[in-house]
């Protein structure tokens, strides 16, 4: 099965636990697309960093738009206001991580200027 990997940045005034973020995305998928849509997403949480508030999610490539829309529609995590931004999408985990690294380097370069 072809898959897509999505890097997500979470913004919240409160610390966000891995489980809470994953639940928020699932809830958003269920709200927007129902159980049938959720069953097509093949969603999985690959990586989560509480320090950087970044996560990597995996989904079926056919459900990329569905999962992307659901991630963006997240407005709260555990009753606290939170926003999830999609940083990157990629077909392989390796290329996603490579792109994330190069983006981070470019950001550092820009801030140094």
């Amino acid at each position, binding site marked *: 099965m072809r898959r897509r990997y999505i890097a997500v940045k979470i913004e919240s005034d409160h610390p966000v636990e891995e489980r809470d973020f994953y639940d928020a995305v699932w809830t958003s998928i269920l*709200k927007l697309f129902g159980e049938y849509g959720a069953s097509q997403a093949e969603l999985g949480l690959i990586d989560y960093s509480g320090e950087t508030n970044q996560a990597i999610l995996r989904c079926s490539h056919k459900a990329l738009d569905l999962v*992307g*829309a659901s991630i*963006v529609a997240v*407005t709260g995590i555990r009753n606290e206001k939170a*926003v999830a*931004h999609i940083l990157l999408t990629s077909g392989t985990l390796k290329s996603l991580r490579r792109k994330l690294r190069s983006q981070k380097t470019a950001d550092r370069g820009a801030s140094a200027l």
Partner: protein
Amino acid sequence: MPKDWDVSMKFYADLHLCPSLERTDEARELIRKSAELGYDAVGVAFPLRVEQSRIQAVREMCRTCGLDLVTRVDLTPNNPVNLLKSLRNLRRQFEVIAVLCLSKAVARQAAKDRRVDVISFPSTDSRKRFFDSAEAALASEAMVSFGVDMSPLLQLQGFQRSRLLSFLRKETLIARKSQVPIVLSSGAISANLLRKPEDYAFLSYLFGLDFGGAMRGFCENPRTIVERNRKKLSPNYVAPGVYIVRRGEDCHDG
């Protein structure tokens, strides 16, 4: 990101921010966040009667964040006569004029008037959504864009959101068939309702707009409006296609 979008065209504009201008901190935060999310220009909705000092203050906030301020006014006339009166008074004061259509007569008048840039409809009242094929034909002729605010999609839940999505799906299809430009904007009143243009492009999947179409709604279409209006508001503009290229006594030599 999907490949039907050329990144080199990048000039992202969110033409509808609705900060409370009384609360300077909130307005500043909204503008700062817009810059952080990668926008190049923001359209701030000002009240009909606004002092120049207030516009200058917001322009300064935008300048410190590296953003281009586009002045905007939102009209909600209750009849076509009021709309025409407002357009006469305000067209030369603001760079973008948007009309929130609350009646069919106003919607038709706004769609055929070239002084109007964007028409939009209430998000929560389905009886007041008048964007049909006749409206689209008029809008296409007068180069009026169809405006969609994205924040109601984040704020509304359940039945209201599904009904809004249903209308938006029909309306964007009509707009595309009639070649009416679609302008997407946040319509945000607070920073937590702001998203990146790419995020909104994912969200627009909910009403059937493809990634490229959504990005044009944040980039090409707003830019066309702003450039066109800035040319018209420039002191060198005389009439459509006629501009002053040189002033002074020696202009006949040029």
